């Protein structure tokens, strides 16, 4: 992951949060990991905002336009071309 893009930032922050989540499942009292989880979750929220500004809602519930259901607007993730 060389160049920073909305999709790469989202994937990068997302995998950090998820990897720490799995670690916390088996180490639920690891304070350092809990701190890291909070830190990367904040980074994920920033990346999520940038991503949604570029590509539209990540979840149906964040589809907020009143004239069209943005959720069904493309592209879908498997189509590629989302950078």
């Amino acid at each position, binding site marked *: 992951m060389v160049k920073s893009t909305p*999709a*790469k930032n*989202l*994937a990068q922050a*997302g*995998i950090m949060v*998820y*990897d720490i*989540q*799995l*670690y916390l*499942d*088996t*180490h*639920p009292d690891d304070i350092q990991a809990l701190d890291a989880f909070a830190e990367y979750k904040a980074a994920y929220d920033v990346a999520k905002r940038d*991503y949604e500004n570029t*590509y*539209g*809602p*990540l*979840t*149906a*519930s964040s589809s907020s336009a009143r004239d069209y259901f943005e*959720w069904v607007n493309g592209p*879908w*993730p*498997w*189509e*590629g*071309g*989302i*950078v």
Partner: protein
Amino acid sequence: MWIYKKALQYPVNITETNPKLAMSIISQYGGPDGETGASLRYLSQRYTMPYKEVAGCLTDIATEELGHMEMVAAIIVQLTRNLTMDQIEAMGFAPYYTDHTLGIYPQAAAGFPFTAASIASKGDPITDLTEDMAAEQKARTTYDNILRLCKDSPDVYDVIKFLRAREVVHFQRFGECLGIVNDHLNSNNYYEFNPAFDNNCN
């Protein structure tokens, strides 16, 4: 319940057309050690897992595997789009095309459809977690085999490398889960009771 996030866990952007490679990679969608089986295995096992951390781990890894199913499907979709009839015939894709056109179907590289016979849910935490550790290694081996087949396709190679690395992480977590289970059991005889079935062992 689950809520869908409209993004891949790791981006897939493939411009190459290569149905032959897609027919190998499809094994990780519906083959014996693929992501569909992985997800279904962990989702099914968690209901009889008596320890909350381990049930959490099974849930979260199963959820990630659903995301990997989607990534593997994305690779296949992108490797097979814009195919001409000439390419379908010349690149060994005719048998799949006959049954599925360009649809994504859960099958193994050898062509047989997804079968739950390739997974286990035994209702014994030691047995299930040992199965899960083996499953992660089998998936890792399959990704290693695929990596040897896609050396000339850097966009595919990069994604497969990511998926392979996740198998290694999951193996590690399941090893820790087995440790948690063992800590709850009689140290003189781990196998004296099944903690998911015998009431007198906890």
